[in-house]
């Protein structure tokens, strides 16, 4: 990114931080958290500790960061180096991202920017202009992706509440500011768990590592009576709903499963794991030292806010998370696919000079699809 663009983005971000302090707060138990931030075109600053909102706002105004982060962990000494911090416990966090869901729509709203010739095209493998394979794939807003991610969030919520016994009001859902959601679990029995234990929770939530015996299937002499019922709680119940569908089909399907044999049953379990399991990013949940984008801060991949979702079902990120100003600006835009922000359509732009509101311009500049004219 050139200086002109950095200047423009910093101005827009600064105005946001100034106008919207009400959206950005330090989390609870502030002094036990590690904070970090990044500026445009520069590296990460970590191991920062803050006392309160005032200190946070000061940091924002002084540095105008492109991204602000905060740990899910609680430390005795958050500002010391990693091995001196003295880890105490950490909130449980889940990351659900549309790009990991293998949805069919991806291709229709992805574009590539060539790192050799800087041309933008619709191809997903190589540059259509110079055939270079050094490309960056950029994805534009898509309703289907958001719906797909929401579906995974709902699966996750059901498991958290029903199986893991997490109280509803200890769960907070945020739009990530790009293409997914972050789910935070506060004050749970899982706070003190280490990485290995969290990885077991991940397998549980994603429905990984299930064995046929758990669902009544045995290698030798399987018994019909051991198979699960639709009303059962937990995975046995969810399995039944997925595999049997209804009570009336249960008996017939059990016969088929038994005659199909053990290994086929096992394969089946693996195959349905992405259907009934919640597709979370396992590494994020297992990492107990990570810093996460601070709720209310801007995402430099889009200029959108990481925002709290009051009502997930009706939540529309591309109108509810765009808070940058409406002042118009002239840019050179190269974006072959149309997109929508704050209910306004943009593009397609075929390497042309256009005058558009700041929030739209920031979006494209952040994605490296436009420059200041």
């Amino acid at each position: 990114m050139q200086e002109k663009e950095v200047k423009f983005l910093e101005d827009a971000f600064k105005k946001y931080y100034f106008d919207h302090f009400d959206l950005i707060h330090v989390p609870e138990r502030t002094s036990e958290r590690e904070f970090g931030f990044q500026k445009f075109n520069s590296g990460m600053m970590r191991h920062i500790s803050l006392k309160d909102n005032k200190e946070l706002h000061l940091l924002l105004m002084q540095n105008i960061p492109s991204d602000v982060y905060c740990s899910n962990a609680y430390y005795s000494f958050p500002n010391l180096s990693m091995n001196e911090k003295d880890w105490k416990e950490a909130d449980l966090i889940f990351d659900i991202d549309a790009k990991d869901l293998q949805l069919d729509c991806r291709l229709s709203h992805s574009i590539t920017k060539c790192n050799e010739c800087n041309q933008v095209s619709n191809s997903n493998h190589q540059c259509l202009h110079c055939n270079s394979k050094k490309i960056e794939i950029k994805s534009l807003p898509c309703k289907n992706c958001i719906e797909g991610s929401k579906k995974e969030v709902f699966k996750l919520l059901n498991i958290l509440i029903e199986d893991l016994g997490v109280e509803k009001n200890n769960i907070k859902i945020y739009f990530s500011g790009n293409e997914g959601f972050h789910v935070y679990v506060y004050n749970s029995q899982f706070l003190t768990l280490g990485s290995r234990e969290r990885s077991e929770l991940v397998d549980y939530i994603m429905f990984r590592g299930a064995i046929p015996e758990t669902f009544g299937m045995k290698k030798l002499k399987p018994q019909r009576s051991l198979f699960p019922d639709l009303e059962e709680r937990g995975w046995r119940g969810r399995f039944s709903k997925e595999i049997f569908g209804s009570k009336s089909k249960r008996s017939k399907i059990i016969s088929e499963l038994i005659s199909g044999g053990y290994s086929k049953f096992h394969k089946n379990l693996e195959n349905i794991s992405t259907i009934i399991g919640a597709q979370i990013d396992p590494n994020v949940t297992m990492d107990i030292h990570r810093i996460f984008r601070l709720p209310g801060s801007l995402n430099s991949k889009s200029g959108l806010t990481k925002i709290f979702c009051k009502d997930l079902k009706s939540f529309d990120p591309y109108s509810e998370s765009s808070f940058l100003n409406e002042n118009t600006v002239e840019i050179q835009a190269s974006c072959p696919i149309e997109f929508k922000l704050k209910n306004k359509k943009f593009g397609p732009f075929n390497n042309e000079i256009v005058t558009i509101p700041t929030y739209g311009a920031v979006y494209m500049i952040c994605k490296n699809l436009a420059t200041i004219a």
Partner: protein
Amino acid sequence: MITLGKDEIAKYPFLADAGQYLKDKGFSLDQFGIDPDLKISLEKALSRVQVSADGKIYKSDLIDGEASKDYVLEREVFSFLLAIVLLKLTGMNTLIKRFALAEARRAEKYLEKDLANITDESKKELAIRIIDDLFSIQIKKQDDYFIIPISNYLKHSVNFHEREWKLINRRVGNGFVFLTPHETVRLIRKELSSYISSKIINAKTPSMISGFEEPVKQLISLSKKFVTYSVTTGEYPPCIKHAIEVLEKGENLPHSGRFMLATFLLSRNQSVEQIAPLFKNAPDYNERVTLYQLNHLAGASGSGTQYSCPSCEKLKTQNLCFAIPECDNIFNPLQFGKKRK
């Protein structure tokens, strides 16, 4: 600490304060070396250690955790306390480890029985208290199950390798895991034996007591036997090392794992007699059956076919593989450590 009844101290003697117990009964250690009546306890203590060294569980005089006579109960506790004195005087860690393991197994049986006790509420309560006090697991009874918080469960279960202990293969609801009495107790096996062994290791060593010299001498010579079959695992692949570790800790190694280990060691020209002792700590160890099975694998009995070690691929599907970079490019654990291009 928990206050224990007479029969409870006999079942869970490691919970007692040894010195206090003797004092309460009006005895001193010295008397056990001289007094002919008390010497029975010393003999029992010796055999308690010897039996445990053999990988077996000491058969007590209690029947279902009860005894008709008070002195039987007392002797039961004395033999445990004296066994610790003998172990301290002998000073051999292998014996302590084995003793702790066997005693843990013994206590496990009582814990399981007490948990499952439906006629005597107080027995169940005590077992629950012990597990909470020692291992901070809060158990509650719900219908036919014992339920414990998921986070408690995970802290213990992550050390198990068998897939049935994965959370996904457990009954889970409302933040709790549902377990049978057997599973509940199984969950703390390792901790129970390390609790007992740390209690022994931290106990202070008395100076030699007259009358104790003979049993101590016997135990020292017994402990020498173990060195002969301790396997060096340096050049073994991770899967084999892991299997040996599981067995040494007295945990259950699935049949597939035993098969892998036995066939591997046989191919490395170890004899059936050398290999058999490895299985001694297994919860279901039976010397005769083990020898028979090993001979069968070695091709010495029956069919005459010698079985070979399964491939890495096969072992991966059985969750027995713990590959490390040195495992690259090999297809069978037997190739491990032999240079290949």
